[in-house]
């Protein structure tokens, strides 16, 4: 009797496991449907800027003063951000110690994921996107399900107060991002050549595993060890759509050794690189599913 139970439990858990792994690959396969993806990307790209614009208009029209918005932001910040980013916004909250990468220090005004050129402050919609989506693969959570749009907008306004730069500095125009071109073997090949020519592999590794020869020496602006991103996971920190990856590496990842490639590359080369690094995604089957750190989204 006891044995029967044991065996059935074992079988049941194996089945559950198999099911989960299967669901994962299914999801991976449908995602490569190019047309559907293009459509989704276009919508996603517009969603956050449209939302922020709408929110800005509401604030302008409403009786709430901008002070009210930042006060609301502060209430949210205290309970949801402070544990990591710190009361003073310096990234040294009580829970920040073991985190790598460390929470952002908001006092510098430097942000990794922007649609604006290198050196510029980010747009509200950039911060709004990060707060909504989180930074997968790091401790930064996605807040889109736990905070309403208004709450996220308010907390972004509050976060901006930590750096005087937002008061004094003009924000540059965002870079233009065209519709992502379709995937073709020629473009992939071009991407591969650009990857080799620009020595991306020095840091990211020949196969994109983040294990290039310079990888162990990399440090961010604060002198903290930083990993060169591993492309084989397929989940990008600044967003995983083609347009997101294009934006991330065109505007540069501020405060990190990741070089900024706006000028020396043509637009065609950049899209080619995007497609190439995304093609490095590796489906390691069972093994990869179990032994890779999960970045399951909401």
């Amino acid at each position, binding site marked *: 009797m006891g044995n029967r139970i044991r065996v059935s439990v074992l079988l049941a858990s194996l089945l559950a496991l198999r099911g989960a792994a299967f669901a994962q690959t299914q999801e991976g396969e449908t995602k490569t449907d190019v047309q559907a993806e293009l459509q989704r990307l276009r919508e996603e790209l517009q969603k956050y800027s449209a939302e922020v614009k709408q929110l800005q208009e509401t604030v302008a029209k409403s009786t709430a003063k901008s002070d009210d918005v930042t006060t*609301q932001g502060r209430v949210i910040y205290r309970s*949801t951000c402070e544990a*990591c980013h710190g009361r003073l916004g310096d990234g040294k909250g009580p829970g920040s110690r073991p985190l790598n990468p460390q929470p952002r220090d908001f006092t510098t005004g430097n942000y990794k994921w922007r649609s604006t050129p290198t050196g510029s402050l980010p747009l509200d919609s950039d911060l709004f996107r990060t707060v909504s989506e989180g930074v997968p693969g790091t401790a930064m*959570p996605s807040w889109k*399900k*736990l905070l309403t749009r208004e709450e996220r907008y308010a907390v972004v306004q509050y976060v901006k107060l930590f750096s005087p730069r937002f008061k004094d500095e003009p924000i540059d125009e965002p870079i233009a991002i065209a519709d992502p071109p379709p995937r073709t073997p020629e473009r992939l090949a071009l991407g591969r050549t650009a990857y080799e020519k620009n020595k991306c592999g020095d840091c990211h590794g020949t196969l994109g595993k983040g294990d290039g020869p310079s990888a162990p020496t990399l440090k961010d602006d604060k002198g903290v060890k930083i990993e060169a991103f591993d492309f084989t996971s397929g989940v990008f920190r600044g967003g995983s759509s083609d347009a997101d990856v294009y934006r991330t590496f065109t505007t540069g990842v501020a405060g990190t050794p990741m070089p900024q490639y706006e000028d020396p590359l043509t637009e065609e080369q950049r899209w080619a690189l995007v497609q190439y690094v995304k093609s490095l995604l590796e489906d390691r089957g069972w093994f990869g599913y179990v032994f890779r750190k*999960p970045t*399951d989204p909401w």
Partner: protein
Amino acid sequence: MKGLLAAIVMFALAGAAHAEPYLALREGYKCSQCHVNKTGGGMRTSFGSIYAQTRLPSTVLGAKDDAGDSPTIFRTAEAARYLRSGPFFDTWLADRVAIGGDFRTRYTQTRTPQAKDSSSFDVQEGRAYLQFDLVPDAMTFYVDETLGPGSAGSREIFALFTGLPYDGWIKAGKFLTPYGIRIYDDTSFIRETTGFNYNTPDNGIEFGFERGVFSAALAIQNGTAGGPEDNQSKLVSLVMTHTFSDFRLGDAVAYNPSSTNRRFVFGEFAGVQLGRLGVIAEADLIRDENKDTGDVKRQLATFLETDLEVCRGVNLRTVIDFLDPDKAIGENARTRFSVGAQWFVTPSVELNLFLKLNDSVPQHPEEKTDFLIGELHLFF
């Protein structure tokens, strides 16, 4: 015989889950990252509460995310202080006062070879936590209050002084003995036989510090929990842990003399995380020496847990417990095998399903009891 069975059932039921070291292992955190009580268990810190709401659950039921046409309302500054429209639950009542709680209720089905199957519904625990930061980053008053089932009372109640050199702390009052991994299950042999579990808080003082990957806690307590105590000698326990991002290793020792007995407990524990898969192990040697006769009894208890994060919010667990209740006697060892699944459905809600299969030795056939447990856990 019936009494023994009842006792076993009681023990199995008392095994309410409290801390989840597998989560600490998964993230490479120390216990203090998510628990106010530095050595783990009980109330969650603000980081812990955020983690529990953002990283753990499968989804957020009732989230109004993409409701693009929902009316956009910005509150006035005054209103924002009191009104919150998003589902995030804030545990801070005021700037320096936080609350927390745990509630568990269960359905248990019991199967023994000699008796008919039985089943029951029980409230496992109702518990409220209070944290008063009297001096920010320096002095905290902590209360862990049992509301039920049974009589109410404080499980833990202590003053915690933090911010000492080397991130040191001093804890004074009534608290759980720092020893080994504070796993969720009091009925596991490593917690039951060592006597250091959630049912045995003790009065005393604790010193601890954390330095880089290293942390240590030393406690001196009355020692009443481990057996008869005459207040002439004290229980001393020490636990030391190295915590790396995917790996941890720890040692624990405890010495508890009383007028009739001298108890020495020694344990090693470790954890390894490989992607979605975590393995936690502990082994404890318990040596009891009768002061009058000089008789020595040695026990060995081991624990091996594997956890697999199947997908966001779902964990599959297997546990193998082993106990040799007297190393001098052969063939009396007991093993227990459990499998289960935990599902964090939405923030603050966890559903657990467990099957515990107990082995027995020929002398105690009644120990061969299997349990099927379904549990609802609310926490904040």
